[in-house]
């Protein structure tokens, strides 16, 4: 009993950490621009696919990983610069369609240049499972959790201890006021796309040795990250992390105890329940409307 529960918990927390990174990406961009970036999942996919490609080229692991984070960040900046900035202040629907277009574009290019096959990345530190109370934990899971924790800590440090981070928070709180005190809000938007792309890519890289990767894994991972972001209260950083872990754990438990065929449906049942009963998410404040 306990072993089984622990087993589900481990796999839930591992995937959940990736959802958390994706949810943080959604939150960053949403705060800076109120855009819900449906291309977020493609950054996760790019992270995984590029790290496979670079290691196949024979680059050392650290270099491959750095490149697989940096390149998606550049892609994020390009999307913002070329597709989001020209339509400043457009309807939500227009922005949603643009990010969906961007995601198709990225997915299509990946399929053309890297192929439609499924690839796997070797685990970073072997695959001898660790035994904990009868349940097994893949060493790669520790990399996922550790990497996510480090990324969250780095973000926390960035937003509370650096001028740039505070400028981004100020812009999220009130764009006009931020502009008036001399914060370049255009730069903030670029930064948030770069950072959320890098976060997504990191999640994709860390998860790739566990779940394999292909050009089309981004859709589901991104949508689940989105559910996590809504669960935590859109735009709430801590909420995104907790939401991600929760979605991962509930999904793993549901798959284990209820039905593995409906595993992918669980996050979406969750989003309906959340919208019906606590529309501001677990951590969202009460929303007020300005007229």
């Amino acid at each position, binding site marked *: 009993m306990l072993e089984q529960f622990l087993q589900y918990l481990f796999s839930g927390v591992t995937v959940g950490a990736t959802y958390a990174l994706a949810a943080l990406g959604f939150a960053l961009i949403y705060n800076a621009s109120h855009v819900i970036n449906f291309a977020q999942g493609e950054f996760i996919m790019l992270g995984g696919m590029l790290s496979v490609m670079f290691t196949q080229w024979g680059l050392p692991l650290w270099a491959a990983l750095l490149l697989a984070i940096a390149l998606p960040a550049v892609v994020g900046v390009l999307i913002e610069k070329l597709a989001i900035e020209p339509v400043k202040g457009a309807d*939500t629907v227009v922005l*949603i369609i643009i990010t*969906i277009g961007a995601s*198709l574009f990225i997915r299509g290019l990946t*399929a053309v240049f890297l192929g439609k096959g499924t690839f796997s990345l070797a685990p970073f530190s072997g695959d001898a499972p660790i035994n904990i109370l009868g349940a097994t934990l893949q060493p790669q899971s520790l990399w996922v959790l550790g990497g996510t924790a480090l990324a969250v800590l780095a973000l926390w440090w960035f937003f509370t201890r650096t001028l740039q981070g505070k400028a981004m928070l100020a812009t999220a709180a009130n764009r006009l006021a931020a502009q008036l005190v001399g914060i370049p809000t255009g730069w903030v938007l670029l930064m948030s796309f770069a950072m959320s792309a890098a976060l997504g890519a990191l999640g994709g890289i860390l998860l790739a040795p566990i779940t394999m990767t292909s050009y089309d894994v981004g859709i589901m991972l991104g*949508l689940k990250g989105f559910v996590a972001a809504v669960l935590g209260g859109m735009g709430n950083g801590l909420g995104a992390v907790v939401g991600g872990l929760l979605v991962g754990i509930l999904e793993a438990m549901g798959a284990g105890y209820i039905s593995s065929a409906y595993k992918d449906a669980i996050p*979406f049942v969750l989003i309906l329940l959340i919208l019906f009963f606590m*529309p501001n998410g677990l951590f969202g404040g009460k*929303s007020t409307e300005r007229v």
Partner: protein
Amino acid sequence: MSMSKSVNKRVYGGLYLIAAILLVLPWVLPNSFYLDIAVRMAINAVIVLGLNLLVGFAGQISLGHAGFLGIGAYASAALPTHFGWHPLLAMGAGALACGVLAALVARPIFRLKGNYLAMATLGLGIIISIALRNETQWTGGPDGMPVPAMGLFGFELSSDRQWYWVVAALLVVSVWASLNLIDSPFGRALRALHGSEVASQVVGVNVARYKGSIFVMSAAFASIMGSVTAHYVGFVTPNFADFFHSIELVTMVVVGGMASVYGSIIGAVLLTALPQALATFEGWETVIFGAILMACMIFLPKGLVPTLAARWSRKE
């Protein structure tokens, strides 16, 4: 009075033009391949018209509309196959199920401000498509299942040409109904709440109820068109209810022009033709599709028809 009449005349001008094109089309299309594409275009145009009432006029985006299409399609496939229901009855049952489902979802959602419908319909659509994929004993699973032919009084709809006339009539009626709906008090209320929810509330429009009813109508309508598509194609697969299909439909709305009846038709026609046109760029379809989406939204954020119409009237 005279002004509204002249507006009506101009608006109906488009309807006559569509009817004329539909009448001539079967005589000029070279072969059944093109007739088939024409039928698909017309079906999509009707679906997009229904969706545009929701997205364009009520300002609410549905990212799960293919889910409703899927329910209709599978009702028409599964109920006659497993229980021997008459196809029309099955079609009605699908529409009813979608209407009830939409009403259940709409009630809590529309009390909230903002675009929560997008998230709710996204979830709903994905759940529906996963269910269709998994309930193999009823739906045939990922492989799909055949759909019995549609018939009435011993007459069976079978040839592409018969289908063409049925679908063409549906399209003309839908355009006529949409034009009238928009000019009705209901349509004016919808447009008002798209403009400003607060202002329309102040003048007495029950915002939640109007949004709810247009959503329910749009869902039931999608289900019926799902049934029609299923009978026409003769086979359904879960891909029909996919998230990607929902996105395609929203794209047709936005490319043609939100809140534009004729835009819906143009959007449906162009995007149904697009995969055929892109078939020569093997492997690059998705890339080009994505690029076109972005370019359309960046350069014509209001959609083709409203943008061109505005340019035209400025010239005049």
